[in-house]
């Protein structure tokens, strides 16, 4: 039988090696799948992971795709570090988009200088509000935040669906569920890089995402708040003895995650869509969970993890165009990657041994 004993201390070397090995194994298994599907494995891997970023504009698109993932995952890192399992970032993201959209549609005459901060603020508040429901229920009634936050995702999806079909629908949309286009002041613009020009669709939201990750890293490693979060996650009893209030920390990390997700929603809509529609998020809130773990719950790692996952998405589209590979392969890839990561994580934390079981040793186990 397999026995697992916790390792005493986990080396730095292992910590960084694990995700790399996981990615490598994913690539190997991916190649096997391509082969099985009748595609040339090396060519497929090339079109999946290399071709999408072999042009400057491809790099831009990669960052654009990673942007909502990076922001959302940065917030989630705080939750997961504190052992608060917020699975509902998808819903918090949608609420952020709704709140910001409400501001954009209500004040079409405002200039960007006031409208943009108002939208950012609104989106953060929207995300926080949605995250506070599971947070307060957990603190007050000890409900399960996994379940509540997940279920609220569907409520959020139906809420925006109702808004864009009903009260917020553009009368000129021929019955299609879309709001009016945002005014120019409510849009996030593309970046003009010196000497290169436009890098694909690269927009200012990406800069915000990268900065947010760095701020997150600082908060987590250099502030009292971050320290409390880490202590409550690693050793809740010790935290309580030290006088940290677990309820406040739960509320705090949920607010951080909700606010970040809300901001991601606002950026995604203002930079890429320009109007609200029934779907403003295509699973970013869920994919961000993978990103957070791929990053080993490290806000800086989130940037790289977000880029890797985004690359798999872009690669999936590219492989379709060039090789005619079905889209579901992308999903399979993400699944394998997460599986490999969790396996690696387990291997990291535990000494895994295969032992023969005699009747006696089985008794001893008990």
């Amino acid at each position, binding site marked *: 039988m397999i026995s697992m004993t916790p390792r005493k201390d986990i080396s730095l070397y292992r910590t*960084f090696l694990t995700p790399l090995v996981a990615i490598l194994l994913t690539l190997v298994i991916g190649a096997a799948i391509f082969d099985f599907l009748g595609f040339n494995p090396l060519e497929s891997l090339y079109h999946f992971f*290399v071709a999408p970023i*072999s042009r400057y504009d491809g790099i831009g698109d990669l960052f654009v795709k990673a942007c909502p993932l990076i922001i959302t995952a940065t917030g989630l890192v705080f939750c997961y570090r504190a052992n608060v399992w917020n699975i509902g970032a998808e819903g918090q993201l949608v609420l952020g988009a709704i709140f910001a959209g409400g501001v954009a549609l209500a004040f079409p005459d405002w200039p960007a200088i006031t409208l943009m901060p108002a939208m950012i603020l609104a989106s953060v508040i929207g995300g926080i509000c949605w995250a506070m429901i599971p947070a307060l229920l957990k603190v007050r009634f000890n409900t399960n935040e996994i379940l509540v936050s997940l279920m609220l995702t569907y409520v959020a999806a139906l809420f925006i669906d109702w808004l864009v079909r009903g009260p917020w629908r553009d009368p000129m949309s021929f019955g299609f569920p879309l709001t009016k286009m945002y005014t120019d002041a409510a849009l996030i613009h593309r970046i003009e890089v010196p000497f290169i020009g436009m890098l694909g669709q690269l927009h200012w939201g990406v800069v915000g995402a990268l900065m947010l990750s760095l701020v997150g*890293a600082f908060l987590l490693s250099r502030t009292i708040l971050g320290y409390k979060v880490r202590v409550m996650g690693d050793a809740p009893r010790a935290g309580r003895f030290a006088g940290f209030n677990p309820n406040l920390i739960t509320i705090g990390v949920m607010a951080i995650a909700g606010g970040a997700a809300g901001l991601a929603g606002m950026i995604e809509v203002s930079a890429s869509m320009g109007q609200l529609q029934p779907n403003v998020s295509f699973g970013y809130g869920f994919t961000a969970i993978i990103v957070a773990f791929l990053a080993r719950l490290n806000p*800086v790692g989130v940037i*790289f993890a977000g880029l890797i996952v985004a690359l798999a998405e872009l690669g999936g*589209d590219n492989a379709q165009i060039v090789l005619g590979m*079905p889209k579901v392969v992308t999903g399979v890839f993400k699944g394998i990657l997460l599986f490999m990561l969790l396996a690696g994580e387990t291997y990291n934390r535990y000494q895994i041994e295969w032992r023969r079981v005699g009747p006696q040793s089985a008794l001893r186990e008990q």
Partner: protein
Amino acid sequence: MNNKYVIAALGALVLGAVYWMVVGEKSSQVAEKASDKVKVGFVYLTTPGDHGWTYAHELGRQQVEKHFGDKVETSYVENVPEGPDAARVIRELAKKGNNIIFTTSFGYMDPTIKVAKEFPDVKFEHISGYKRAENVATGNIRYYEGRYVQGIVAGMMTKSNKVGYLASFPIPEVIQGINAFGLGLRSVNPDAELSIIWVNSWYDPVKEADAAKVHIAEGADILAQHTDSPAMLQAAEKAGIYGFGQASDMKAFAPKAQLFSSVNNWGPHYVNKIQKLLDGSWSTGDGPDHWAGNDWVGMADDYLVLTSFDNMPADVAEAAKKAAADIKSGKNKIFTGPIKDNSGTLRVPAGKTLNDGELFTTLDYYVEGVKGKIPG
């Protein structure tokens, strides 16, 4: 703690640099070579496995390959959501050197227009929308013609006088279909009523099946749909009632329930447009009456094809054939007055026929025989 980040950053940097060098080399070798082939790209909303709308486009694409052989090279991207991803995928197809790109869902309209501006040398054709540009044409099929024939068959077949209809979104194309069905229905059966359930999706087999069950529970014995999956017909087959297939022949899913399918025959349309591109005569077409572009085509050109009339008495099949022939010959234009709305108000006076523009802009009502009102 500091070390950790430094190591991570350095590691990533080195990896990135190695990657970049390998990539830079390779991509220049694989750089798109100019060829005399016409490259054609398609963007699909769902997958060809939907057995409906997208499957019909896929058959069209295959026909293009067959017709032109080595002269064309086609590719498609499936499951593209109607949002920012659509713009990215269309842009990607344009960058990959496609000469013409067909975007096959209404929701791709704005992304298509947006990307078309960035690639003035690439031709775009948006299916089922109404916005055009220098290099963006529109194309569509007169689906409502088939629905009129469906209405006639339903009116003659129904015993409960209750007919159920699954609708997707209240856009002009769908309203045209409902009203054409209603006109056909009432032309043979003054007591029959059509009730609508909005599924609010083009393709959602679960919701479609649920809506079909609601219709059946309310007593409907004939079902029709403006959604894409065969789920409704499967529900009809199970309940022992009848229905019409949509976009593709769905007989295989409901051999005892399918009366007939209105099949979208995109092949000739795509072949025609690509031939024009090869000839240099491709144009976007315009004019006030051409809301769907110059290529709004229907049964007359076999762009909309009705499958064989099954599971119905001979006289019904006869009536359906006659109606189809009249539409094909142009004798019956369907939206010809007198047309009353379902509150009894005369909307189109006798002798007047709605033109294409009016079909898009004036149908803000249900005709007699259709229950309820248009949402929104």
